[in-house]
């Protein structure tokens, strides 16, 4: 309990110090609860998510960093490894390949990498996975692009 708090506080300080180091990730801690974090990540370039800003919600367990944080997308995203309704992410480092050397910042980076390299063989979003597996790259890209425009981009009006 104390250890997780101390570690999160360290991470908080690190994020404050290196705010400009990674312009793709903006990590903020809940004002009243250090176990709740929010992150805004930019969609990687040359992917259908480019230009979109996706919001992630972190819920950190008390056993952190011995146990991985729970992360989910708050922004709707069309991606084979993200549950379309709940935003749950299927990523090995958040489950069985977790290591205490990961930080919230590095988890964000891993999620960006996942967005760029979807893994259609273990899909949480079957529609998206099937499109990719059947080789319909164009279909997948246009769907993902549409949802990015709908949900992850500031509305022009």
């Amino acid at each position, binding site marked *: 309990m104390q*250890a997780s708090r101390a*570690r999160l506080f360290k991470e908080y300080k690190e994020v404050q110090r290196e705010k400009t180091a990674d312009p793709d990730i903006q990590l903020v801690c809940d004002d009243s609860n250090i176990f709740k974090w929010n992150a805004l990540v930019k969609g990687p370039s040359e992917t259908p998510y480019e230009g979109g800003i996706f919001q992630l919600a972190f819920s950190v367990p008390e*056993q952190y960093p*011995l146990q991985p944080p729970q992360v989910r997308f708050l922004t709707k995203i069309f991606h084979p490894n993200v549950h379309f309704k709940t935003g749950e992410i299927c990523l090995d480092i958040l489950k*069985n390949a*977790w*290591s*205490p050397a990961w930080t919230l910042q590095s988890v964000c980076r891993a999620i960006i990498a996942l967005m760029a390299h979807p893994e259609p063989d273990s899909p949480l979003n079957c529609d998206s996975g099937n499109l990719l597996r059947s080789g319909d790259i164009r279909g997948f890209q246009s769907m993902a692009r549409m949802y990015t425009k709908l949900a992850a981009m500031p509305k022009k009006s």
Partner: protein
Amino acid sequence: MSKRDALPCADIAVTECIPLPIRLEFCLEIWLTKVLCKFFANGACLKGDHCEFSHDWKDPSNNLCTFYQKGACSYGSRCRYEHVKVSTRQSSVASSSTSSHQFLVSDSATASGRLSIVPGVTSDLSPSSIPFFLPVKPAWSQTSQHQYLSESDDLGDFKSLDPADLPICSFAAAGDCPRGEACPHIHGDICPYCGKNCLHPFRPQEREEHMKTCEKKQKKLEALKHSQEIECSVCLERVLSKPTASERKFGLLSECDHPFCISCIRNWRGSSPASGMDVNSTLRACPICRKVSYFVIPSVIWYSSKEEKQEIVDSYKEKLKSIHCKHFDFGNGSCPFGSSCFYMHAYRDGRLEEVVLRHLGAEDGHTVIAKNIRLSDFLRSLHIR
């Protein structure tokens, strides 16, 4: 001979004694048995009849000043213990040289309350005792002036002796001698490691020893300095700045060189695996590089080379080897680690366990080491319906 004489073994030293080793041992034995046991005097000597000191109230207690033996007693002539060098006495008795006569002078010196400077004192620690004595003397007294002069006379004696026997100035050796150039004692050469004037110019062996220990100390200090900076990747704190002393230790992994606190890495390896986590590939792996290590080595210092790491690992294993294995339990239990256990496998009588490995040739030509059959082997293959 009387008991008082027995203490400094005077009769042997004064008369032209034949330096037979048997005679010396005999003399020492008498000397010990004639000294009242300190523990006995306080009412509790555990050695009882086997004590080499005397348990007879009539015998005098050991009246030698231990501080004087080490080089300097701040009480000087006011000390209620005798200022006589034991080691010098023994060696001089053995060699039966003329110096034995010289040291006897010191006996009379203590008796008369004068300073007891033993010419030809050889002890690596023995500093110049004179500066220690000076402040004790009242400055206005005539006698002190006289004493100082007589000391200078003694110093004259020093110079005529072999330079290797002369002590170096302890003030200079400690860092700074207030007398500087005017100091009557030899100032040692500067040690390249500690930067103090503590190398005796005429004792090569002592010099080497000092340099060796000094170099080792310096290296350790540097390693410690370097270790201060190192952070644990689990708690992200500096390992040697953790709040409790027990946490200020590194946990080295055998297969890679990533630093962790001992508590962090042990907690991680000991944590119950979450669903789907594989013990071997996740928990036993380094959190950073995922190389699997089967044990963690605690160390207060972080290494900078492979040899240093090996040294730490070896000394750790050496330490464990001296502890009885709780699984083996003096032969009553069985240790799941078998011959690769780090702890000692010894029976109650001190006999070490003899490991007999049974090599079985398998059909395909490979050799397998036969293990003891355990109940769990059967339970694993059991299907519970």
